[in-house]
């Protein structure tokens, strides 16, 4: 972490503006041949609205500072794991301040319980929740800097202008922000402090490279794994062969005899070896002789999970009588998060205080839980949040930080604890496996009902999600955080008659967690596959049918965009085909059109993809396109090859050699992402791309091969 000059100049922490719920009507132009469908909760109040409401009271606890050197420093209470929030926020600040982007430094804030729920990174809510408060704080800072210059020059403030990190007088004089900062801290703003109109934006909305790109390409970017804390011992943990297995006995004689091994420590999850360097810690771990007790998932394999899920699917309401119907079942496998940077944490626990460094999406809850575990008051536990080498939901949980704190407390020394890749895949958290039953009924060429019943291995939401919802004032929707999240995210974009989406959760002893796009990854993917089949039932093509039943003009527009740009319907060789799908969530909409080469059905290759996205107001189109590209890669991976097997209470896979996430040879040689013009306020983007791309890949594969894939990944 950089050490900042603690001498304060202009430092602002202002009250948050009012943030209101955006309610939208469920239908804007219903198709003539479709029965309008009922609005769902997520159409009216979704997870992003909830986070906005919960974080609004403390939005003013964010800090913006202008140093005497003219650096605009902002402490961002969010995680940066590649989604580009630091760049988007730097752009918002530079825009409102009329500062050069290079002068803006966005640092990740330490955990601060005073922020309550305004330090939670999940649900594609970053830009949505920060858009108003960040612009407000930057606009207020600009007003003060202008006022300071007005005082200095004895000129009316409203005659001054700002650009390039300077205030300018009508006669051409200028003063850099750094030179004005001290005075700006004490003036009463003499001009308005409201953010710019969108039409006045010069930077927001313009394609912009990541602010940290140069540090990344030169190897200078520091991740949690690269943090140097003097005296911190490299630490790894011997873990059981089974999930949540426990130690019966441990002979550490050989391990302790290795030069450089400093300590061997029993912790609840295994046996930790701390050493001078990581290679020595790994040797020490391998020298341990441990007798393990089986974990609670022994006896559970994929087939048992599938049986449990099928038994748990809620019943349909519409009986299979009188009407024509289409029934379809789907299975989705467990998936590892497997961020490139393995889990790690640095912990320095002393008798009266503790200091930790770990990338985390929920640092306030993590700080509280770790403080409790090591017996210190929260105020004595400092949590620094470094950048993360990927997350995808994984760093909502702080397992490695808890382990590092436990080891450091026991041995009285700072430790830097690393999970190996095998630890990550075998003992990490899993996107829960799910089973889906969909029944669509229709008569006389008209859709009557569309019922989706999803059974899912229970997702662990104990990372503060439930407390966020409570803090927002939203009514509790049912028992369990999973059901709450389901109803705050699940929606179907079509007029298909009576639409119902229900979830049943199956508790297991497994380690689970939200995975990019959470329930929508299975829910909406399955639905978009069925929509293709419904189109066929009605004798329409997949695009024409969707256009006739889509509710939203925005979604129709993104679909029309990919149809045109992706050349829907163009002739392709035998074994090749196109597939298309759409998705709406986070107040955004996307469509994806892919072409696949399934000449060898066992080794399909997506050869081209065309994506259109409407996020309401794109802050950084370059970063937005990157998120859609990532969603596509996740889709190709999880639909075609990447999943993990559960064998008798243990995960079969152990590295990227067998957890078959896409590589270059699996990605399309041609990708075009089209960003739609601004249509409103910023929506979410990080997770948006996964469901539409997933279904497009499967729809293309189905057409190319003449099959109907029902279990994913297809090659598993």
């Amino acid at each position, binding site marked *: 972490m950089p050490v900042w000059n603690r001498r304060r100049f202009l430092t602002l922490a202002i009250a948050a503006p009012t943030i209101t719920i955006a309610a939208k009507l469920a239908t804007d132009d219903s198709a003539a041949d479709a029965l309008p469908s009922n609005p769902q909760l997520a159409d009216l109040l979704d997870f992003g609205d909830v986070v906005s409401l919960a974080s609004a009271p403390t939005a003013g606890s964010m800090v913006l500072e202008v140093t005497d050197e003219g650096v605009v420093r902002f402490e961002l209470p969010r995680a940066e794991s590649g989604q580009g929030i630091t760049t988007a926020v730097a752009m918002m600040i530079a825009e409102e301040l009329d500062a050069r982007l290079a002068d803006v430094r966005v640092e990740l804030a330490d955990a601060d319980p005073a922020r309550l729920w305004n330090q939670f990174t999940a649900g594609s809510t970053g830009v949505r929740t920060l858009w108003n408060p960040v612009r407000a704080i930057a606009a207020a800072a600009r007003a003060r800097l202008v006022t300071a210059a007005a005082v200095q020059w004895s000129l009316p403030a409203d005659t001054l202008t700002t650009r390039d990190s300077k205030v300018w007088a009508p006669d051409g004089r200028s003063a850099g922000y750094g030179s004005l900062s001290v005075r700006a801290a004490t003036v009463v703003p003499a001009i308005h402090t409201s953010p710019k109109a969108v039409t006045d934006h010069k930077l927001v909305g313009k394609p912009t490279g990541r602010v940290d*790109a*140069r540090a990344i390409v030169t190897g200078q970017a520091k*991740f949690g794994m690269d943090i140097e804390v003097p005296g911190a011992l490299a630490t790894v943990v011997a873990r059981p062969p089974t999930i949540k297995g426990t130690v019966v006995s441990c002979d550490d004689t050989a391990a302790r005899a290795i030069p450089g091994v400093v300590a061997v420590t029993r912790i609840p999850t295994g046996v930790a070896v701390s050493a001078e360097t990581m290679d020595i810690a790994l040797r020490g771990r391998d020298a341990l002789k441990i007798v393990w007790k089986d974990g609670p998932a022994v006896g559970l394999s994929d087939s048992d999970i599938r049986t449990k899920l099928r038994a748990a699917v809620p019943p349909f309401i519409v009986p299979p009588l009188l009407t024509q119907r289409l029934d379809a079942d789907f299975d989705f496998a467990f998936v590892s998060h497997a961020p490139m940077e393995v889990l790690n944490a640095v912990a320095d626990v002393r008798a009266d205080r503790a200091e930790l460094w770990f990338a985390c999406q929920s640092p306030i809850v993590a700080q509280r839980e770790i403080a409790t575990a090591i017996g210190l008051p929260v105020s004595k536990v400092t949590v620094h949040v470094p950048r993360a080498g990927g997350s995808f939901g994984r760093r909502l949980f702080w397992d490695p930080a808890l382990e590092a704190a436990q080891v450091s407390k026991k041995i009285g020394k700072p430790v830097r604890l690393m999970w190996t890749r095998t630890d990550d895949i075998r003992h990490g958290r899993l996107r829960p496996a799910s089973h889906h039953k969909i029944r669509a009924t229709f008569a006389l060429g008209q859709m009557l009902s569309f019922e989706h019943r999803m059974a899912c291995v229970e997702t662990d939401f104990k990372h503060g999600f439930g407390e966020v919802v409570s803090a927002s004032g939203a009514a509790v929707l049912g028992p369990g955080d999973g059901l709450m999240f389901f109803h705050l995210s699940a929606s179907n974009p079509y007029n298909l008659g009576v639409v119902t989406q229900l979830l049943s959760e199956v508790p297991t002893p497994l380690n689970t967690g939200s995975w990019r796009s959470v329930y929508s990854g299975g829910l909406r993917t399955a639905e978009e596959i069925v929509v293709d089949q419904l189109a066929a039932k009605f004798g329409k093509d997949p695009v024409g049918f969707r256009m006739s039943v889509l509710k939203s003009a925005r979604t129709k527009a993104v679909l029309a965009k990919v149809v045109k740009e992706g050349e829907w319907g163009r002739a392709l060789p035998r074994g090749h085909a196109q597939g298309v799908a759409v998705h709406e969530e986070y107040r955004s909409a996307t469509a994806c059109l892919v072409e696949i080469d399934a000449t060898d059905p066992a080794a399909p290759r997506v050869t081209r993809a065309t994506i259109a996205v409407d996020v309401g107001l794109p802050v950084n189109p370059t970063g937005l396109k990157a998120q859609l590209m990532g969603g596509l*890669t996740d889709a190709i991976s999880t639909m075609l090859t990447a999943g993990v097997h559960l064998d008798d209470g243990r995960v079969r896979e152990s*590295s*990227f050699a067998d957890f078959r996430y*896409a590589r270059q040879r699996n990605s399309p040689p041609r990708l075009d992402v089209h960003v739609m013009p601004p249509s409103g306020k910023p929506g979410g983007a990080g997770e948006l791309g996964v469901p539409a791309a997933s279904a497009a890949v499967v729809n293309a594969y189905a057409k190319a091969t003449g099959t109907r894939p029902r279990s994913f990944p297809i090659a598993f």
Partner: protein
Amino acid sequence: MPTYRFTVNGTEVDVDAPADTSLLWVLRERLGVTGPKYGCGVGACRACTSHLDGAEIQPCVVPVEQCHGREVTTIEGLADGDTLHPVQQAWLDEDVAQCGFCQPGQIMAAVALLDRTPDPSDADIDAIENVCRCGTYCRIRSAIKRVAAGG
């Protein structure tokens, strides 16, 4: 304990370590060179990709004894002072990185490819095995083609 002498990014180093210690941990833990990343330790993810005498290696599976008397180049040694290597510049021009963790390895793999094959085909680019969990492959491909086309 044996001593191995080799150069890292042009600087000669002496390392005391067991012969089978992987170059990755020697670089990261003993020499403070943290550009090469640990992602798997078995040569599967290739986040640590660097060069040995100009050829691509995965330091996590290269024992330090094999480096004796040779030249190791990591991402830190690629630029010429403040002047980026053309591949690094192309990475900026295409805004390739997301989380950035795998990108030092991706860049070193691309440099090795372009050294071997200055005008690589799509199939040549497909042969790059480095995993990017953020899924930046399309921009990696564009960046490599940009370099091949002369920037």
